[in-house]
């Protein structure tokens, strides 16, 4: 009955995440999101402060010094997926119940 192994499901989720972050993100709407739009309309955004990490190599979801926008955003997205996967997956492995040794 169990047609699809856990490995394939995991691979499927990873591939979808990489495609979304690496390729589809280029086509995402660049309009301000709900909060940013409301902040602009109400004047809240005047109080926004420059982000301390605004000059980072991946700031604003684009890889620094990569001129091609599609490539720059794609690389940043893929890097983010990998970093989040490693951190959250690693944390989960540390926190999990281990099988009793016997």
């Amino acid at each position, binding site marked *: 009955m169990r047609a699809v192994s856990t490995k394939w499901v995991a691979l499927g*989720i990873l591939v979808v995440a990489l495609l979304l972050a690496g390729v*589809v993100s280029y086509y995402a*709407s660049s309009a301000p999101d709900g909060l940013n*739009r409301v*902040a602009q309309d109400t004047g809240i955004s005047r109080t926004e402060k420059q982000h301390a990490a605004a000059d980072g190599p991946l700031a604003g979801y684009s890889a620094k010094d990569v001129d091609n926008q599609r490539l720059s955003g794609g690389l940043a997205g893929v890097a983010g997926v990998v970093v989040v996967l490693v951190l959250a997956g690693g944390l*989960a492995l540390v*926190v*999990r*119940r281990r099988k009793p040794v016997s």
Partner: protein
Amino acid sequence: MHVPDGFLDAPTSVATGAAAVACVGVALVGARRELDDKTAPMAGLVAAFVFATQMINFPVASGTSGHLLGGALAAILVGPFTAVLCMSVVFLVQSLLFADGGITALGTNIMLMGVTTVVVGWLVFRGLQVVLPKRLTLVPFCAGAAALLSVPVAATLFVVLYEIGGTADIPLDHLATAMIGVHVLIGIGEAVITFLAVASIIAVRPDLVYGARRVLARRELEVRTSTGAAA
């Protein structure tokens, strides 16, 4: 809905930071019950999926977009405590590496888009599961409804926080109407994505969906009974 630096004053940011640390602490303890050798890798994948999906802004109204928050989705896929950990990792990485969401606002963002959406999403989901028949086909619908509600509640909490510690003087009713209105629309997108994601995994491996376990446990019991009767 990533709050940047400067929107909320220092005391409010310190308070949300402390609340976030407490919630992550509780989640670290609670997640132990949810995570084993089989589910731990799923937690990493769900966090990565939420990160990727948050990059996909979809248009909701003229000149306005929204993206999945993902707390309800994560809670249903890997359990609420683990979901808080997944969401916190996403916001930490977004803030430090991508300059998305202020560093002083990290606690605020974890509370709004992580803890609130997880808690509201999970409570609505479990509530619906209690009321509705225990059928596997209903799980994605419950997930979608939970996701739909989680977004405007998070927006409402932002309005409350802004009333407490906002750095500009904005009329409450104006802010509340604008924030909740647009986030109901974003909630519809959240519901669609959550429905599709949960339905896809249930179609191939329902046992990997934390929120489907109770439904599955019931089903397995029924199967055993019929086998026993046949034998």
